[in-house]
């Protein structure tokens, strides 16, 4: 039903979404914690920067990345100096683009979940002699798990849906940068509508199932933490 190149695109998309989600969970943790707990005046500006990809057209991000990846751009110079291959039209370039694009979708739910914990559990643990690191991994992380799950699901689904950036910096290379969204776009451009239908329906269904499982799980959880996580969708 789906062609070989469709499956290649699907596998590539899943690979990209998985790697990006895992990286973002790691990156989001210190960032979300700092945003949730700091009193510094920098909190506002940093939060705004994190939220930028929510409102920026992906073409803007893609355009600036194209310039940054070029040999004369900052990232291009860095990769050149390290002896690495250029980032434009590569899987690694897409990962970087997706990290920026999906950042707020992972950081914000985690941040809200961490903030909802409040000071009391942490103060209590401190009084009992727990170190900051111990407090973080024994209390903060487990209690913000709902936020992590929502963030991971959203980050994953959002990366699967990425298009504008891939179009700008991808180059549509099979097994490297030709993700499902580009494959569908190429089908429509080439007037191959039934192929476009098949792939689009699959993506629609998959995205819906991911979101459905997140929502159903959220509403079914024991009421002790519902409303407290504040994880917004």
């Amino acid at each position, binding site marked *: 039903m789906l062609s070989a190149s469709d499956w290649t695109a699907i596998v590539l998309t899943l690979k990209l979404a998985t790697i990006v989600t895992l990286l973002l969970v790691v990156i989001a943790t210190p960032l979300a914690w700092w945003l949730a707990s700091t009193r510094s005046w920098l909190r506002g500006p940093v939060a705004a920067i994190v939220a930028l990809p929510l409102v920026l057209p992906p073409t803007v991000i893609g355009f600036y990345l*194209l*310039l940054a*990846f*070029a*040999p*004369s*751009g900052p990232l*291009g110079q860095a990769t050149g100096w390290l002896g690495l291959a*250029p980032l*434009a*039209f590569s899987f690694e370039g897409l990962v970087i683009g997706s990290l920026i694009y999906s950042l707020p979708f992972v950081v914000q739910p985690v941040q809200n979940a961490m903030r909802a914990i409040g000071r009391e559990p942490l103060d209590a643990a401190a009084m009992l002699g727990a170190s900051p690191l111990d407090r973080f991994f024994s209390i903060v992380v487990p209690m913000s798990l709902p936020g992590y799950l929502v963030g991971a699901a959203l980050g994953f689904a959002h990366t699967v849906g990425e298009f504008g950036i891939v*179009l700008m910096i991808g*180059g*549509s*290379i099979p097994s490297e940068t030709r993700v499902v969204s580009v494959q569908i776009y*190429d089908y*429509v*451009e*080439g*007037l191959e509508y039934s192929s476009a239908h098949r792939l689009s329906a699959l993506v629609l269904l998959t995205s819906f199932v991911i979101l459905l499982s997140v929502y159903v799980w959220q509403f079914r959880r024991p009421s002790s933490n519902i409303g407290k996580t504040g994880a917004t969708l």
Partner: protein
Amino acid sequence: MLCCLIMLVSSASADVNVAVASNFANTARQLAREFEKTHDTQIVIVAGSSGKHYAQIVNGAPFDILLSADQQKPAKLQSANLLLTAPKTYALGRLALWTPRKAIDNISLKTVLSQNRSARIAMANPKLAPYGIAALETLSSTDPQNQFNMKKVIAENVSQAYQFAHSGNVDLAFVAVSQLQQQGVAATHWFAVPASKHSPILQDAALLKRASNNAQAHAFFNYLLSPATQQLISEAGYERIPTTH
């Protein structure tokens, strides 16, 4: 309220809505301005990929004329019974090889490739764009075994191929002669690919059924095909259409 009235009044005069392939957009705008000097109408140029234009037209988009990048889309519109007359070729595209950071005057195509082994070369998507097909054909005929190991970077269209080269992300690109002329790119850094290396890049114009009562649309369509305009088009970097066409 006043704005709405003004807008209603201004749209009452017959506009001509023209969907134009990206590679021809700038030339189309120039021609539109020329036409407007002697005709009481406004030509609205909407640039984009022919594939998208086709999909939109088939779904009722309000265009009077389609200036496609190829012959395929107008032909499909005709078999879908959406045209007033048969499609007519309005431009014959010329492919160029461009190396933004190296001078290549007086070098043959094969030599340029051999001097840039394993380099990235951008081209429009051969599946979708006639300039891409021409680029692929040129590469295949010049280097059939890919002994120069060129890494093809597929752009969405000729404009994006240009962008990839301009930003420095690729060293070579197959683009349209008209683009390089319009941007005033130094002649030492590009040359037109010999027409024998690829099939002709024929770009067809289609007059859509929506324009049946729009005399200005008919006028603009005929204007594009007139000898004077064809001269302007060829000066913009296209070939003259053979008169037997």
